[in-house]
């Protein structure tokens, strides 16, 4: 029944052209451009989440056996994101004005924000709501029409979204497509004006290759192995809590989950002791019975992880139990892992945490920089300021977080996105809006006598070129001195009035004397 439902929404391959054409028509009519329309759609999206929160939780639980609280970890940032967009949209939409120049008083220059047109958003299964709707918030705010490709990895959540979205959003501007690889391939053949995809690096390459045909700009949110370095100076009790928490949300199936740990032998011992304590106090003796641990999404991934555990040359010190019937893998820590180990090849995306031994921070940095992939997130736990500085300056990663995991992705106003193999482009908050906006340079001149005579210096015949060039260079290189600053804001006005009040006060004082 459910698969039937999906097929209905998908409409099959050949119809995508027509669907996108419809959206393009709506866009060309300018339907999505007005502020009111965008605001309205965002409000509807907010309403969708509020009115259906139980149903959404249930769908997520069906897919991932995930606890309500972890689902809240997915829905809450989304709600905040929408609320921020609603609150700030009008200020985002203001054109960026350039300062007026005293020497060219008749000219006006600014950046107009144009929506791209029809954008494609490809979501994924590990956070089916967040990773599909979060980019959508940006696309709506920027005034685009959008096609959402929902993942077939999380069928229940995708079905729920496919059912709910058309009820709340304007169906002539926003369409939903469910399905798997075939639908994605068919979709990518159609011309879009922007493609936003959250996926693996392998699929990311395919998306980018498909975007070449129409020279479509892209944002790719990919994964990768996120390293975590623990320095000997860290507070291990707190560090272990935070790290295990980050690894265990969604049972390690997060693109920014700590993938492996680098630390010294001494740190390793302390960390494992603390981790064991933490796991026991959170999940009890029988971890499988705990309601708080999500399951692996499907058989394919379960088998992949099981194989990793079988093939690793490292020593399993915590966990390592599997149960295919329940898609269960217990929280596992593996030590004595070499950099050539199977666990170090691909993103793990499961509750397995290998530890590599490195004696110093320098060695760790050398190891990180020698790896080909720049990570999506890099985590450093240390109280030593010099170590922090070293990591900050000598490594590159999508995001860098000290003494914390995961939370950088929902930090207000911070961009989120990878670099190198971990992705292209940024989003979240204002960055989402800017991702889906083309900033068009606008220059408005007039036909006035002054402008034309000033401009006439450029015309042929190029006689006395030397003098003209001298003048041009002097003129252009000093132009910025004559800019009238744009931001004469409230503080300056207040300062001005303070000046007046101050002088009046001095005057009064003097007359009083």
């Amino acid at each position: 029944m459910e698969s039937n439902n999906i097929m209905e929404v998908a409409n099959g391959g050949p119809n995508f052209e027509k669907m996108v054409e419809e959206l393009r028509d709506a866009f060309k009519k300018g339907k999505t451009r007005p502020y009111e329309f965008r605001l309205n759609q965002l409000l509807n999206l907010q309403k969708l989440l509020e009115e259906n929160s139980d149903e959404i939780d249930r769908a997520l639980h069906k897919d991932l056996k995930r606890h309500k609280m972890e689902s809240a970890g997915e829905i809450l940032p989304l709600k905040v994101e929408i609320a921020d967009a609603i609150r700030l949209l009008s200020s985002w939409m203001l054109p960026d004005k350039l300062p007026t120049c005293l020497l060219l008083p008749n000219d006006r220059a600014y950046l107009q924000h144009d929506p791209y047109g029809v954008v494609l958003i490809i979501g994924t299964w590990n956070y089916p709501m967040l990773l599909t709707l979060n980019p959508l918030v940006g696309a709506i705010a920027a005034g685009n029409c959008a096609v959402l490709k929902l993942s077939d990895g999380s069928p229940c959540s995708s079905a729920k979204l496919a059912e709910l979205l058309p009820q709340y959003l304007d169906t002539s501007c926003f369409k939903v497509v469910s399905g798997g690889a075939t639908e994605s391939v068919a979709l990518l053949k159609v011309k879009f004006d922007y493609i936003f995809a959250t996926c693996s690096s392998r699929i990311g390459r395919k998306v980018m290759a498909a975007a070449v045909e129409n020279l479509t700009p892209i944002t790719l949110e990919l994964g990768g192995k996120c390293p975590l370095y623990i320095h000997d100076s860290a507070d291990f009790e707190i560090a272990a809590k935070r790290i295990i928490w980050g690894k265990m949300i969604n049972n390690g199936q997060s693109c920014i989950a700590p993938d492996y740990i680098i630390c010294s032998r001494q740190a390793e011992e302390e960390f494992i002791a603390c981790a064991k304590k933490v796991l026991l106090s959170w999940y009890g003796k029988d971890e499988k019975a705990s309601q708080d641990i999500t399951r692996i999404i499907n058989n394919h991934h379960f088998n992949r992880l099981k194989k990793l555990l079988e093939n690793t040359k490292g020593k399993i010190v915590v966990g390592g139990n599997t149960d295919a019937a329940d898609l269960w893998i217990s929280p596992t820590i593996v030590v004595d892992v070499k950099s050539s180990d199977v666990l170090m090849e691909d993103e793990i995306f499961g509750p397995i945490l290998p530890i590599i031994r490195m004696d110093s921070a320098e060695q760790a940095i050398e190891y990180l920089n020698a790896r080909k992939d720049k990570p999506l997130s890099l985590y450093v736990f240390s109280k030593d300021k010099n170590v922090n500085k070293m990591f900050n300056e000598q490594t590159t990663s999508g995001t860098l977080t000290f003494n914390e995991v995961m939370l950088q992705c929902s930090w207000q106003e911070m961009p989120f996105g990878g670099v190198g193999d971990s992705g292209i482009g940024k989003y979240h908050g204002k960055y989402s809006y800017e991702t889906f906006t083309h900033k068009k340079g606008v220059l408005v001149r007039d036909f006035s006598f002054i402008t034309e005579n000033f401009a006439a210096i450029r015309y042929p015949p190029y006689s006395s070129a030397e003098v003209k060039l001298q003048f041009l260079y002097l003129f252009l290189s000093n132009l910025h001195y004559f800019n009238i600053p744009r931001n004469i804001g409230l503080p300056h006005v207040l300062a001005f009035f303070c000046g007046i009040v101050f002088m009046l006060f001095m005057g009064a004082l003097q007359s009083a004397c």
Partner: protein
Amino acid sequence: MATSSLLSADTDVSNSYAKIVDELRETFDEGRTLPLEFRLNQLKALHLLVEENFDKMLAAVHKDMRKAKMEGASYELELLKIDAVAAIRELKQWMKREMMPFNLLLPLDKAYVKHDPYGVVLIIGAWNYPFLLSLQPLIGAIAAGNCVVIKPSEHSSNAATTIAELVPKYLDPACFRVVLGAAPETIELLENKFDYIFATSSTRIGKCVMQAAAKHLTPVTLELGGKSPVYIDDDSDIEIASRRVIWGKCINLGQTCIAPDYILCSKSTEKRFIEHVKHTLQEWYGQDPQKSSDLTRIINNQNFLRLQKLLKDTKGRIAIGGETSEEDLFISPTIVADVKATDSLMTEELFGPILPILTVNSKEEALKFIKERPKPLALYVFSKNQRTLEYFIEKTTSGAICCNDVVVQNGWEGLPFGGVGDSGIGHYHGKYSYETFVHKKSVVQRSFSKVGEKIYAARYPPYNNWNMKVIAGFMKYLHIFEMRARPVTLFATFMAGAIASVAVTVGWLTGFKKRND
């Protein structure tokens, strides 16, 4: 024998490219390009390069395409110098970390955006402005702290060899390398993994570049071309409009990516426009434009033949010019009237001194015509009516839009330059160049404070409803506790208030006392 030596030469080339990239990556990993001083020094050296070799560079472009001194200087070298000077002036400001607002609920946490250079970047230049289009992106790449491979276009060979000769003399050769070569060499070069690719090229080559980039997931900026339309409304000052348009079309003999490509206007405007252009051309270039030293030549035979064929195939009426001379690679400034939308002149970017005029009867018709075609790199609108201008600004999308002038938006300080859709991806110039070549890394720094940990512990398992509500409330209202001002400045303001109140009280008391006395 011959084939084997050819083969070995081929592998030599690819090996040497791989070696160059490896060497640059090594220098980058050492962190040599990171300090502000290094970047400033290199920018100053680049500025010096242009200043000291001004005439030599002008001679090179004159040899390549007979570019007039005034054009070579003001549209290439001066722009380079000005961009370099601006970068030197602003770099320290650009490099500053973007601090996030302080939050009262998270007093021990610090968050900011740090700008990391990408690493080793590739810049592919073009032949029409060989110095500007290779070296202006370089300014951004240096400012951002990258190592760079520069590949100038082989079609402007003299300029390319000049770049290859001068760059190692002025810039640090361990960080900046020039590679010469044609299409096969470029393909070899693109096999290597770069961290960013910046290419100025045609749409066709742009696709090849992006295809190669997709293999390594390399982000790209593509500066492509396209047909940039001009709409002239009936109410504009046709005399001034015609001068500006024809100037934009004739610089570099139309071989400018943002040159006006075709005109949309009414029949009556067309007539007046052609009258004025005739007059202007006579005034600027004399009776025989071929004799004028101010007109550039077509870059090579291939492009000349392409343009000649376009002129032969057009069904339009040649109103001005139309003379061609193959041995001189010259085509006189040409205006073709009565052109239909299906004409040969409308099939591709012209990139030459041919200006077709299409008749439209209203601004609505013009808008429809423009919107039916790929998004242009630049759109030009001439009108005295502010509402007409706004109409186009609001309803069209293009890389840039310039009202009542052409081409000048390119050198405008503060305006980004770049296309959208078929005309390109990404933008540059000034601060935007710097931003093109940096990765903005989010950095969050938390503490191990026990008090903080007590609060954050709400997120840990075992999960319960109360904690869930606490977190929901926390996240919902977090933004209210944001402080735009830094604590230090707030404290300063507070102290200023305190001192002021003391001053007022003392002042009032002394005044009061005096009056009492």
